[in-house]
């Protein structure tokens, strides 16, 4: 019989404490609410000074972007990507020589001479897993997530949704088609001449 009444008493007291907690929240709603009204109020980006010497490390995970002027086509980022969502094609070019019509600058901002013209640099953002592994091996630090340490060039962008999946493939190489075609058949000519030379050498 005693357990019967202690059960009732326990129920009443514990339920009342629970109600006191929720009532407390209602009364303190003015300063206690956590809602962020998205389109109007935005999430503050974490502060920039990430506190150690080289400012190149990137502490933001948003859309990947590439500075084509600095890219020397070394394919390190393509190899570092765990889901292989970066595709690069390059063509051999004379060292450090500008090709304006293919908007290719011969010397990078850090002064290295470019030997390769990057004809195709596509990143498929639907497959990218935002792990940021590709930004570390880059010798020129030209691939990074927008809004990171080089945010002066590219503002923060994490709202890049599209209607069509193919629009999510960002193509950074701006080399016109005919230039790419001309390099391709030049390369073919070089190959055929070399194969003839080999046959000549063998026979």
């Amino acid at each position, binding site marked *: 019989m005693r357990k019967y009444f202690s059960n009732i008493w326990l129920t009443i007291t514990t339920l009342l404490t629970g*109600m006191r907690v*929720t*009532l407390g*929240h209602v009364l303190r*709603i003015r300063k206690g*609410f956590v*809602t962020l009204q998205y*389109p*109007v109020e935005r999430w503050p980006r974490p502060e920039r000074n990430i506190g150690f010497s080289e400012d190149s490390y990137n502490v933001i995970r948003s859309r990947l972007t590439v500075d084509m002027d600095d890219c020397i086509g070394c394919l390190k980022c393509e190899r570092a990507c765990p889901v292989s969502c970066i595709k690069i094609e390059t063509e051999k070019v004379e060292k450090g020589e500008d090709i304006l019509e293919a908007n290719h600058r011969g010397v990078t901002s850090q002064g290295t001479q470019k030997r390769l013209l990057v004809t195709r640099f596509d990143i498929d953002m639907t497959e990218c897993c935002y792990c940021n592994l590709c930004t570390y091996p880059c010798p020129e630090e030209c691939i990074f997530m927008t809004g990171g340490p080089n945010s002066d060039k590219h503002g923060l962008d994490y709202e890049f949704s599209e209607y069509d999946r193919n629009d999510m493939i960002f193509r950074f190489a701006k080399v016109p088609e005919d230039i790419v075609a001309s390099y391709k058949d030049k390369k073919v000519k070089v190959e055929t001449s070399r194969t003839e030379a080999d046959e000549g050498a063998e026979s």
Partner: protein
Amino acid sequence: MVNYFLDIFANVSWLAAMPSGTQFVLAALMTGLPLFLFVAINALIAVYAERKISAFMQDRLGPMGQGVGLHAGKWGLLQTLADALKLILKQDIIPALADRKLFILAPFIIFIAAFVAIAAMPFNQHILAADFNIGVFFILAVGSVGVIGIIMAGYSSNNKWSLYGAMRSAAQIISYEIPAALSILTVIMLTGSLQMQEIIKAQSGTIWGILPNWFIFNNPFTFLAFFLFFISGVAETNRTPFDLPEAESELVAGFHTEYSGMRWAFFFLSEYANVFIVSGITAVAFLGGWQSPISGYLDGPIWGLVWFFGKVSFLILVMMWFRWTFPRLRTDQLMRMGWKYFLPASLVNILGVGLWDLVVN
């Protein structure tokens, strides 16, 4: 209200000429339509209040309108209107293997049960759709008709989850009817009449000088009866901590899993109508309906409306408070509590009130 309108028709010449049948229908319509509009608006306000209260309890802001263009009003006021519009326009699917006739009929039965009970609800001294002399008994009787609708909905959706939901709610509502009826009995014993207006009139005046002579303060047994009735009322409207029939986390959505669009909206319309009825009866029976707390002052008809709606909305807020604080009971615990704790308590109550009445007066 109906005979009140009939008297008005009598002295208007062209209305009196009509046959008495159409006169009666016209008068009934004139009382029924505002009540229906009241129920719809009450549902809209209650849904908005529920969302705002639950948001404040959970450190959220709830529906807020901001930004430019079509949005949900200043503090999300238009949110429920937008929901209602959406529900009307939404495609309303009837499952192929469902039992079509019952499926379509179920929401209406539940709504009718809820709507008819409001007829006997006294809003103030004069506004009362139908002043039955068996008011309380009528409301309790009609209240239990809703169970048929729920079982129909559960059975006809041909879905295991809704069958579970329907069975659970049938057991729950029936087993909580009894403690509810018994605890109302204590009030009727004190007033001696079933008529709602009589019950309220019996609660005028003061007791111990300052307290209003409401039944809740009358004697300790009616004080306990107030809580018993209120909690079994919560159980009858299937709200937490007794919301087993539509337990989101287990039965997906209980008996109204297969409903969508306007049919689903009817379930919610009737749920909030039920909530209004339960709080209404509790206010009338225990908190003195349209009586003002300071007896003697501020008790004109307009003030009567204010007091009645004040008490009802306070009780509705308490119900919402329950919903966002407590976990859910299991079916067998629910039954055990209903039969082993509530029923003996209400029987002891009746005995207590009888003795108290005998001894004190």
